[in-house]
């Protein structure tokens, strides 16, 4: 078949209107030609994508920009209010608290959740037998529905001395701990659950990247007398750095939008100790039964998105010399 179609293509430029490789672009512009070339059926096939993205992605994104400078309620027509929404959000005393909490969550999530999957993946890549079992076990928590995981852990975190975790702590003579009910231990408790729920995915990403590590470099390192640690440090990690950089920024972007854990575990408490930026956005828009402050909510979400965009741009700028 190839042999038939390619001579056809080769002879196509011969007639007077010179046509490129694609004959159907020959006489561009005339609607009848467009129809005859199947332009209509192409458009029909493209329609689901255009409609779904148009209505549920492009339109709301544009609307977010407009709404942030409007006062929107569902009764009267929106009014232009300039930067009032941004001023309102920036003057909200809870904003500082929410930002600090979100940063704290992100930092803890990095400390708990960044090195562990890497260590587990490197160790798992050295497993000869039953590697599938290892990855399946690591990935299992990712499959548990997040709401179920949170509700289950909420029971585990029971603060009485017969709570599940307090019983375990009691075996080694520790506790009982207040877990979710204390302002200082609530956030680490949330992060612990979030790490449990997400680490398996990162492990699998690292395992996939580890397959691509060029093994002849290990031999070269051995010739130079390198031990296991130096091989990991000088051969394995440098070859993973592209993936490591990406997972780091993706994790930061993800944790900056954390919602489920604080919402379901603590509702932002105790004493707003786990109120995050996304929870504040939710409260602005949907928290009050009197009707939402949609302008403030979109203003805050745009600011968050802006900060994340600047952060990732700077991050990729800074890491580029090392990542390729």
């Amino acid at each position: 078949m190839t042999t038939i179609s390619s001579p056809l293509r080769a002879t196509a430029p011969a007639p007077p209107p010179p046509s490129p490789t694609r004959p159907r672009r020959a006489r561009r512009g005339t609607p009848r030609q467009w129809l005859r070339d199947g332009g209509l059926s192409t458009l029909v096939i493209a329609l689901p994508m255009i409609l779904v993205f148009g209505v549920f992605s492009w339109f709301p994104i544009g609307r977010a920009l407009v709404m942030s400078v409007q006062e929107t309620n569902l009764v009267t027509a929106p009014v232009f209010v300039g930067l009032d929404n941004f001023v309102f959000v920036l003057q909200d005393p809870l904003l500082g608290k929410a930002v600090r909490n979100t940063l704290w969550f992100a930092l803890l999530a990095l400390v708990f959740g960044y090195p562990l999957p890497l260590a587990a993946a490197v160790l798992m890549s050295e497993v000869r037998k039953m590697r599938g079992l290892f990855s399946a076990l690591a990935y299992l928590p990712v499959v548990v529905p997040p709401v179920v995981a949170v509700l289950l852990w909420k029971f585990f975190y029971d603060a009485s001395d017969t709570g599940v975790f307090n019983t375990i702590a009691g075996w080694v003579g520790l506790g009982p701990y207040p877990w979710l009910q204390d302002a200082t231990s609530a956030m680490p408790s949330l992060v612990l659950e979030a790490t449990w729920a997400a680490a398996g995915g990162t492990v699998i990403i690292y395992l996939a990247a580890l397959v691509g590590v060029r093994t002849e470099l290990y031999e070269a390192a051995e010739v130079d007398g390198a031990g296991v640690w130096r091989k990991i440090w000088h051969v394995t990690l440098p070859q993973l750095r592209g993936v490591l950089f990406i997972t780091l920024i993706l994790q930061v972007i993800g944790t900056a939008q954390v919602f489920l854990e604080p919402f379901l575990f603590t509702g932002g408490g105790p004493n707003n100790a786990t109120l995050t930026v996304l929870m504040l956005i939710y409260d602005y828009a949907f928290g009050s039964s009197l009707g939402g402050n949609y302008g403030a909510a979109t203003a805050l979400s745009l600011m968050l998105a802006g900060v994340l965009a600047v952060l990732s741009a700077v991050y990729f700028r800074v890491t580029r010399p090392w990542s390729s």
Partner: protein
Amino acid sequence: MAANTRTPALARRRATRPERPERGIVSSHDRRRPSVRGSLGVLQGGLLVTLVVVGLGPILWLAKAAVTPTQETLRDPLGLFPTGIDWANLATAWTRAEIDHYFVNTLIIAVGAWFFQILVATTGGYVLSVLRPRYGNVIFGLVLATLFVPSVVLLVPLYLTILDLPIVHVSLLNTFWAVWLPMGASAFNVLLVKRFFDGLPREIFEAARVDGAGPFRLLWSIVLPMSRPILGVVSVFAVIAAWKDYLWPLLVLPDPAHQPLSVRLPAIAPYLELDVFLAALAISTVLPIALFLAFQRLFLSGAGLGGAVKG
């Protein structure tokens, strides 16, 4: 055709597989040394035990607690074997707590979300990769751009869009469409499928065109049957994502009669006895875990793929 183009690659990969794992960080020579083998064994054994306790432990605990009476779970939460198995918990949760109803809602949401994600991703990927109209690049750019917009930006304006659709002015609140359609707008899926279609041999498309196949026929009879692997990955992730979703259905399905398990479970928790509640949690977990066990390879390759594409 598909078989012809795939087999050599697969065969080659299979042929090299026995050689590749031979060489890891620790050399085969070192592996034979007893001290190395011992410490590696201890480390890996430790990892396996940790993974079993941390990964499987909570799930097994939930399975046990689902059939244990409340008093016993409270008194001795870490007892390995329940003294009396209380199967009635599961039945009570299923009927009296109306988990059956919410289970069906979750299924409806998952199946619909699956359909729209597959529809948009395959037709979109087909247009962008194979048909390539002149406006294709613009659309592809716009689709890619949405990857860089964090979902938090969409939350409020998308909610207001659901309340009042542009042009037609219809509210989708409390209908499953409100969950299905926005899930279809996944740039990640379109990108994944387009990349896969880009890798299919062009000659087959040309041949089909010469034989008189129109664009619909080409999609249905040639492209889709060749795309089973990528359709599998997209399907599994579509179903799991729909099963996991919480905040969005909470907002657009305020009527409990339409709500999925993820939204109902926290709401009914205070009104249920502990053992029935834990049974409800267990029932909600069964299907995702069964899917994972059945399509393990698809899940794991998909998770790795996610990293590769994002990278």
